[in-house]
């Protein structure tokens, strides 16, 4: 049986600003006094890749292309990272 590929999207409740080379994101449905999350480097690239891609292989390929690195390197931690962002309310699993 083919393992199911996780499909992700940015949470519709995530406010974000993509400027100055990084992404500042705020989960509006789970606000606390810690403020916004700052995403730089690969994290910002993943966020941007979510604009057009939902499945992890496509996200990894887009990020690898963006950062000029191997997609395998991206895939190693991608699922874990997306899961953390899901816990923070910034992305959703479809």
């Amino acid at each position, binding site marked *: 049986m083919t393992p199911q590929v996780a499909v992700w999207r940015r949470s519709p409740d995530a*406010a*974000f600003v993509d*400027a*100055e080379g*990084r992404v500042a994101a705020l989960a509006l449905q789970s*606000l606390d006094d810690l*403020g916004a999350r700052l995403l730089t*480097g690969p994290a910002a690239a993943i966020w941007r890749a979510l604009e057009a891609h939902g499945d992890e292989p496509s996200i990894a390929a887009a990020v690898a292309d963006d950062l000029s690195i191997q997609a395998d390197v991206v895939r190693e*931690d991608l699922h*874990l990272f997306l899961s953390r962002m899901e816990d923070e309310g910034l992305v959703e699993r479809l």
Partner: protein
Amino acid sequence: MSDATEFRLSLAEGVPLVHAMVSRVAHDAGIRALLIKGPILAMQGLRRPRQSGDVDVLCDPPSAHELGRTLANLGWTATEEHPEKPKVLEPLGNNWIHPRWPCNIDLHHRFLGFYAPPQVVFDAFWERRAQVQIASQPVICPHPLDSAMIHGLHLLSGPELVFTETDLDDLVRFLKESLTADQKRALAERAASLRAADTLAPVLERAGFPRLGRNHLAGADAADWRLRRLASETKGVVWLEELRSAGSRGWFRLVVRALTFDEKTTLHAEQHRRPFDRASLIARRLAAAIRYLPRAIRVLLRARDE
């Protein structure tokens, strides 16, 4: 895969996010609140894009405290007015700060220049509210023409603002060129109904609006508007006005307070439990008073003659 370890937002990041946050927080709490001024003005074509330093909210007056409590639950703190600060001008709202956000929130329960009851003004704005997208989220704001009135009054109340002339020109051009004669009449009537026809007159006349509802601002309201405008352009005006209102019984105490109260110094000393040099503060205040009081007196006397 690492993300940022620093946690310092820029204004370009913080201001849009706080707009989205406040609009969402108010909505979720069932509080009617409009985000005003700032980036909304540029989005509505009323001003050139410019980085704002704070976030302005006009709240349904009876709900302003509740919105404040909601912000407090998220770590925001209201900056308290020092008890010795002049009180002759009624506060229009309060200011909120947060250690993790680069901008303040100005939470208004009333907006200056509108002299209809605050509830009437807010209800009018809410009835034809609009929505813009900021930080990819819906943000509730006034209709563009109501934003234009708010923006105009803000500019007229603070002639010393750096961008005032340019912003006024842009606003007048928008009103002159974007509205039909019927729309201008409708807006002039709306300004009159909100008792802002006199306060907005300099903008409305330049934009060719009909003169409706003029010369109705009088008494305490006229004095309030005059004082707010003068206070923004000339130091010492508010203290002088409070002195005049105090009468002979209170003036001595008021003079002493005016000479010895320095908000920053007083607050710093109180916070750090250190005595401060009162004598040198008085000397500095006297020197400052010699510099700016003559102009403040001339400004107040001229205003009274007008």
